[in-house]
């Protein structure tokens, strides 16, 4: 195997929000084709890191390279080229409430391709069906769908441009255990068949053990440990032990070990 360029390379990232250094010299590498989970306690800078990788937030110092393109200094056109190659699933789904699910899913295709409307609708519908929504859901508005269905619709929109890289922000939060487990399986299926690289921020211990290839544990403004979940869970660092050895952490750990 040749040495592959990493898909994301974050180097020495420093961010000051409201007087505290949320990220203080953070380094992280995401390899092609893996599912990397970012975890950490509240306020450990997970969301900040995600927003910086998405260029929704500017860091004070450091570099973020995605697809071998430096984002912090990229010109808008270069940034757009990168943005077309990734898809994002937001925690609150961020579906456009005034558009139907089909229109929501078709939106990136209308904006970023020169396809005819018929093809766009068919491709969008394919993605809606792929994420496990029924055909009828396509003409409904997000407000008419349950939480789990909204999540799936948001995933359909994130995947519609066939991205190579997908960011998932708390993909299973707000879902019942059944839907959350089904969503985990969905993520695994797409990752295997479409060869996606997935970066997910999560609190869900089950999806951490079930889905993630590697886990990056954030704390003290840095990545404390990146490794397979088994090894991270046995890391002696007090913050990590607090996370994995709490009453819930122990139960889940026992199941998967």
């Amino acid at each position: 195997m040749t040495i592959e360029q990493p898909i994301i390379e974050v180097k020495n990232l420093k961010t000051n929000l409201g007087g505290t250094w949320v990220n203080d010299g953070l380094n992280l590498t995401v390899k092609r084709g893996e599912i990397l989970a970012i975890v950490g306690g509240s306020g450990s800078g997970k969301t900040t890191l995600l927003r910086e990788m998405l260029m929704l937030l500017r860091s004070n110092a450091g570099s973020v390279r995605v697809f071998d393109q430096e984002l912090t200094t990229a010109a808008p056109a270069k940034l757009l080229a990168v943005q077309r190659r990734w898809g994002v699933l937001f925690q609150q789904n961020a579906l456009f409430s005034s558009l139907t699910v089909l229109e929501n899913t078709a939106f990136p295709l209308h904006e970023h391709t020169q396809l005819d409307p018929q093809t766009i609708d068919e491709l969008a519908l394919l993605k809606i069906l792929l994420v496990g929504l029924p055909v009828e859901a396509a003409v409904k508005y997000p407000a008419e769908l349950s939480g789990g269905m909204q999540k799936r619709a948001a995933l359909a929109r994130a995947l519609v441009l066939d991205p190579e890289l997908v960011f998932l922000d708390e993909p299973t939060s707000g879902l019942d255990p059944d839907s959350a487990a089904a969503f985990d399986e969905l993520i695994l299926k797409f990752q295997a068949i479409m060869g996606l690289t997935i970066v997910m921020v999560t609190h869900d211990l089950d999806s951490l053990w079930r889905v993630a290839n590697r886990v990056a544990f954030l704390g003290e403004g840095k990545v404390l440990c990146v490794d397979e979940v088994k090894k991270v869970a046995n890391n002696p660092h007090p913050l990590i032990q607090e996370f994995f050895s709490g009453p819930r952490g122990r139960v889940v750990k026992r199941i998967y070990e």
Partner: protein
Amino acid sequence: MTIAAKNFMNFDSSLGQLRCQGEWSLANIVFLKKSFAEIRWPTTGNITIDGDAITKMDSAGAWLINKWLKALAAKGLVVHQQGFSDLYQQLLSLVEKHTAVAVPKVASLNWLARLGLYASTQLIELRDYLAFAGKLTMEALYLVRHPGRFRGTAFAAIIDKTGYQALPIIALLSFMVGVVIAYQMGVQLRSYGANIFIVDFLGLSVLREFGPLLTAIMVAGRTGSAFTAQLGTMKINQEIDALNTMGITPGELLLLPRIFGLFLVLPLLTMWADVFGVFGGMLMAKTSLSITLHDFLLRFQHQIPLKSLLIGLGKAPIFALIIASVGCFQGMRVQLNADSIGKQTTRSVVLSIFFIIVVDAIFSVLLSRMKL
């Protein structure tokens, strides 16, 4: 992505073999479709689609292949696939499983049904408004019996926001209206040498009509819209639901203080507007019609009856009820989507102003019948 890569397929008609190559991805769909349309397909026989040389295929590419397979089969050709890697084969079958027959359309109505829907929506809204007003009246009556539950702080805050903070803009606006009326009428009066009658015109029009009407319209735009937006945001945040579960009705805490507050404030603002309107006219009469302030005031107290002022001020509380109740009602109708707050706020302002003018017209007719 280069021009050379746009050569995506070769059809060997003697072997009946379509060799696919290159990147079959979303970015190339347009070129793929074009090349496919250029191929001359035989009318019968076997066709093999060879995917051995495909370097990259995403779900859009798989969808396209799947679509063509069906189209060719429909033409009566027997189609085989070969050479697709395991992964692509999986992708193809995944796509095949999830392809719908037709894209569903949002049901659209004909013009008659739309008209009916529109009319019934309006009627339902009217019914809801009446129910809302009735419920608030009951809550207001309850408050009369239990004055301890009256929210003094909220009431005071509303008076500050809708009344006190509106003083400068209302003063400026009515002053300018007074100036404009005096100037425009003065031009006409001067040609008859009837300069002094500006006092009668100005006094009557400002006190009876312009004062109350312009103040109400200004407040509808400034305060009615704010009521709708505030309540709507609270509704989206589920703050209204939270209040309800705590056993506090939104009417008691949010709506009645707003309605009572505006009920008190609007007549006061109207009085304030009257003063500045007349003052503006007075200054204009002095500069363009050479009527001294002394003469103006002397004639004013003889010619303008007190009832003009009282009629004008009497309309204000009714306008206040319209603005506050429509503003609150529209705010409580906000739905959980991004359009909604904007839509209801617009509606709140348009409906308030509409009803203010309608009520004002009714007043004019009634009062003239009663010879007032």
